[in-house]
């Protein structure tokens, strides 16, 4: 799209929008330093909860599980979903409507229902509940999100570039990797990002498909609601956000440096 700098009011709006997005995060970060265990009112400043976090092996295990599941399910869902988007956006084949409808099911079905149906299915099939069943479930609901986003990107895709590439002697595979994929990459990455985010914070479906000892972070935090979601959780989220933000900032800086060469 145009590289003209966006209009003034647009920039103001964007700043307001980002404020809206980040204000609760700021509150969340502040309250990670609260002395009050039940974290309802601000009582005082402490780093105690960060200390608790680093010694809490349960939470750290849950974090590891959550990340692992998110990575695996995102990768698989993105690959499968992108292929599906290509199929639906460019081809007609028998079973088209059925495939399209099947893709909408995970978006439409309430999570409770999907969770219970998957639980019943795994039990029926004899699959033992654990991390693997969670991952399988996450892939299932991630695929449609990837497909939908990539389809939006593909719509109106100008095929003349691909045809030109093929005229110049490249075969389908090369054309796909060198021409098509780079062009739809923003859509694919957006879809992958969305899938990763969904998997990271999923509670309901994970709840039903988890087995003894297989716990994820959302499960752990939700279970704390009954008594108190202590500032330890805020501490974890703060560190997480902070780390990724630093990584992002660093990659931006590195990119800037590269461009100046």
């Amino acid at each position, binding site marked *: 799209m145009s590289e003209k700098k*966006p209009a003034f009011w647009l920039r103001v709006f964007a700043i307001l929008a980002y404020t809206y997005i980040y204000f609760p995060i700021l509150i969340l970060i502040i309250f990670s330093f609260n002395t009050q265990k039940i974290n309802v009112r601000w009582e005082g400043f402490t780093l105690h909860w960060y200390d608790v976090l680093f010694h809490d092996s349960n939470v750290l295990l849950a974090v590891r599980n959550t990340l692992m599941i998110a990575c695996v399910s995102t990768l698989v869902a993105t690959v499968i979903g992108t292929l599906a988007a290509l199929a639906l956006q460019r081809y007609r084949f028998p079973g088209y409507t059925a495939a399209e409808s099947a893709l909408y099911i995970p978006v439409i079905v309430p999570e409770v229902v999907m969770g219970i149906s998957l639980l019943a299915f795994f039990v029926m099939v004899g699959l033992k509940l654990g991390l693997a069943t969670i991952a399988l479930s996450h892939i299932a609901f991630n695929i449609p999100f990837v497909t939908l986003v990539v389809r939006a990107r593909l719509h109106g895709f100008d095929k003349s570039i691909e045809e030109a590439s093929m005229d110049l002697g490249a075969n389908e595979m090369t054309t796909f990797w060198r021409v098509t994929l780079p062009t739809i990459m923003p859509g694919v990455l957006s879809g992958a990002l969305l899938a990763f985010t969904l998997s990271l914070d999923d509670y309901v479906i994970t709840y039903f498909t988890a087995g003894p000892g297989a716990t994820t972070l959302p499960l752990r935090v939700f279970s704390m609601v009954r008594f108190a979601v202590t500032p330890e959780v805020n501490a974890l989220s703060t560190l997480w956000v902070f780390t990724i933000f630093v990584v992002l900032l660093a990659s931006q800086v590195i990119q800037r440096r590269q461009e100046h060469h």
Partner: protein
Amino acid sequence: MSNIQTGKPALTRFSLRKILRENPTAQGLALISPTAIYLLLFMVLPMILVVLLSFMTRGPYGNVVYRVNVQNYARLADPLYLRILVFSLGVGAATTVFTILIGYPLAYFIARTPARHRSFLLFLILLPFWTNFIIRIYAWIMILRTEGFLNSVLLHMGVINVPLNILYTPTAVLIAMVYEFLPFMVLPLYTSLEKIENAQLEAAADLGARPWRTFLRVTLPLSVPGMIAGSILVFIPAMGMFVVPDLMGGAKTILIGNLIRNQFLVSRDWPFGAAASMLLLILTLVFTLLYTRKAGFGEELLV
């Protein structure tokens, strides 16, 4: 290799590749097959279980008795449930409208910034969602409650005299719902907007169109696929959402999501819950397919 054992001519293998290369239908099927197989196993089969479940009966202990009965669907034909469905549709619609109002300018802004900043800005939108859902909502509760941050600041500044009653009202629910669904609208919208060719915009300008006209006649129509994708990703889940309305609204109303959850996790009437889910599923499926077809979403054909 195989031609000696099977007796088939070597031409067969060659033909398969040829078919894939030249036959668009075969190509399409090949591309869709991983998804189709995966979803068949892990989505369709479980859903068939749910359909079967909706025709079963609730046992005396909340278990499922394998006795076929259509009472569950008959129970649904009741103004109470219709009212709940309509209310849920309203919540979904309101959330969608507001995510478009806030998300569109934001997506447009990102699409117009220099390319090297765009991923960063997108990541910034998603980053908060890598915190935990519960504490994000708790943060909103801390901001919006009677003795919360917003009221404290406004009172202190003298803007208001009495604390605003926002928490546990529909306003609070909307604020949090839009907050949670914003990325689902911004991301698809962005991918659509980002694709709009500079040449098209310049052509319009060359033909004498003012910026607003260009926007209405060129940009907006071309961003429709993104809006459709975003609307689907927001409206449908928002309609079935109940955690945010419960936490921010005080759990004073029952939405379709609450109703279904209650059947499974409170009254333990799984067959009835399954029937209600089926109703919701069919309704939204029909709506979605009509919506996307009408707006030409699936009309790309390989010629």
